[in-house]
């Protein structure tokens, strides 16, 4: 971990700050949060603006059009991004920039890379994820959607769920069972799916905050060229795992830092007297948010560790976010019964311990993969 900020890094910080200050204001993070085509337009316009000024793909290698920022500069960028209250990084460009793009860089063919990467960076194409299925929430290896090889095509049938922004997306990273009869992690393939193909039906799902971020996707004899397979056919599990190492350098950093800003806002608005129950609670949240920030920095800056260390940050973030948003609406009194940004964020926070692996699964991973405790006997 190196937190020494060089002279040059400080000028980088000032440059980022100045650019953000000059270019914010046209976008609205509320819009983006609420989904829909307006949100897509806002998000992609903002990304295009970032791209034009050299602020897109900050963690991507330069050879693929990214900025190739050092870990320290990555942190500085996201600090400034968060401090400026720039649009939430968790918009419809998130999957492309932080997941699909890095996977293509690691495992894609030259054709795949040269076609898709520039489109992702500039906001021209939006990606969604197609991993989860109705029967395989926390048990990804149990997925059942099939892709049957017919000549040079895959014929896909089945169903995906919890696919964020699937209604807005141009492409989907689709994980399907291509080897008939294969079990669990074996026989899967990672495929680029054009969302305009015939046979695809998208049904948005409304969440408990009244917003439709995610959707179900149905595949009825969808024909995808075999050339859209990323990495080797039937090797999709390994392809999906390649981003695990990249994850600690994604825009999730911005979300983690944002919690500190949320807590500071809460401290300012609550004006709690010293010694009261509320001030003690706020002080605890402030300390926890500081520690989450320290965890984030360390993960970005330190070499080594296991790919599962991310579970520690992911879970800490999730549970802290829920505590913070709950405290926030507790300070509202009866106004918590009205819809509003704090109430919206509170309701949204319930997904933190569910999406992307439940808190229970994260704890299993920490216990088994990091601490080495024995696995449960299989049923």
């Amino acid at each position: 971990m190196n937190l020494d900020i060089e002279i040059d890094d400080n000028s980088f910080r000032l440059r980022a700050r100045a650019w953000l200050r000059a270019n914010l204001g046209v976008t609205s993070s509320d819009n983006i949060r609420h989904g829909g085509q307006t949100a897509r337009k806002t998000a992609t316009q903002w990304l295009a603006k970032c791209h034009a000024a050299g602020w897109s793909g900050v963690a991507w290698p330069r050879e693929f059009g990214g900025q190739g920022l050092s870990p320290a500069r990555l942190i500085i960028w996201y600090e400034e991004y968060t401090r400026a209250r720039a649009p939430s990084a968790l918009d419809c460009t998130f999957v492309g920039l932080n997941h699909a793009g890095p996977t293509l860089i690691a495992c894609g063919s030259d054709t795949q890379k040269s076609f898709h990467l520039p489109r992702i960076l500039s906001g021209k194409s939006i990606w969604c994820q197609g991993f989860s299925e109705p029967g395989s929430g926390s048990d990804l290896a149990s997925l059942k959607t099939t892709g049957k090889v017919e000549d040079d095509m895959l014929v896909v049938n089945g169903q995906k769920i919890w696919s964020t922004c699937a209604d807005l997306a141009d492409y989907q990273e689709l994980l399907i069972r291509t080897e008939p009869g294969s079990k669990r992690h074996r026989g899967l393939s990672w495929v680029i799916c054009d969302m305009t193909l015939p046979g695809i039906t998208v049904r948005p799902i409304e969440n408990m905050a009244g917003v439709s971020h995610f959707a179900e996707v149905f595949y009825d004899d969808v024909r995808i060229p075999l050339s859209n397979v990323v990495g080797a056919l039937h090797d999709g599990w390994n392809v999906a795992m390649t981003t695990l190492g990249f994850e600690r350098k994604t825009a999730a950093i911005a979300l983690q830092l944002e919690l500190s800003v949320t807590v500071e806002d809460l401290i300012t608005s609550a004006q709690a007297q010293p010694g009261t129950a509320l001030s003690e609670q706020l002080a605890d949240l402030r300390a926890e948010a500081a520690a989450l920030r320290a965890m984030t920095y360390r993960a970005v800056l330190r070499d080594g560790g296991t790919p599962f260390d991310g579970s520690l940050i992911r879970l800490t973030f999730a549970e802290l976010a829920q505590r913070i948003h709950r405290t926030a609406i507790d300070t509202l009194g009866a106004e918590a019964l009205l819809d509003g940004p704090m109430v919206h964020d509170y309701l949204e926070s319930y997904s933190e311990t569910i999406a992307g692996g439940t808190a229970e699964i994260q704890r299993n991973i920490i216990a088994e993969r990091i601490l080495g405790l024995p696995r449960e006997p299989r049923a």
Partner: protein
Amino acid sequence: MSFDLNQTEDQRQIHDACRAMLAEHYPLSRLRGPATAESLAPLVAFGAFAFALPEAHGGAGFTLLDEALLHVQLGRHLISPAALAAPIAARIALDNGQLEQAVKITEGQTSVSAMVKTKNGILLLGNGAAVLGIIRQHDTMQLIDISQVNRDRKAAMAQGQPIFAIASLPAPKSNNVAKAQTSQTAQILVSAQLLGVAEGARDLAVEYAKIREQFGRPIGSFQAIKHHCANMALGVEKLSAQLDMAAIAVGKQSEDAAFQTAALARIAPNVALENARICIQIHGGIGFSAEADAHLFLKQAHVLRQLIGQTDFLALPAPMAPTREDT
């Protein structure tokens, strides 16, 4: 009059009838789609609002504990707060000698809503057309004529429940204040509904955990899920025991009524909120969707929580026994 929790056949029958009425008229599915004012007619027909009023006042003469257990059922069905407002409003009317008013309320001829204070004004919950409103002010309850008061529809956290803003209320009259027992009764009934929410969330989660499979087995066979469910059961047991205790104390006007009610009011919201939270978590992705019922329990817990009111609990003397004669 007896407070025997070993239910009589009469009590069992009335609660079974209540369950059937609620299942028919208030299925949770009614809460999907745009919020509308809930019809309380089936509850009026059941006599729910006069359930524990004396027979002389048109009531059914059941005990407060019986009425509380009725409201546990109402809580499970996430009924509009207007169903809490009516029996309390009727009691405030009786507290002030307004028998006719009370009868109109319990028979559904005069509509009542619950109101809560915010930092900047007042919110009206449930029935926007109500001509009367009850509100908690400084540790007691008031019944207020709001027929002339303007109200603005607002977007609600709980989408199934209409909510309205009121800028200010008319100056209170002198004959609209609840007696202490009525204010405590309000806390008992709100707590009873919170218990219903907690029970409903527990049952929904337990049933789901029995059928949902992951990793080749029902998720309810995993210890983490089991322990979540056990925590929900612990919350329900604690809350329901304290509800019995407080309802008996308030019904009998025991000297520990204020203490038992304050303890209850402190416990009830947290149990309901926590059970609803666990219920969402156990459901996983579907629990976070609007399609599942899990979030409805959470939102109702937030609504009821605002109605319960809190007292300076530590200022109340501690009971060591239901009857104390420290001679």
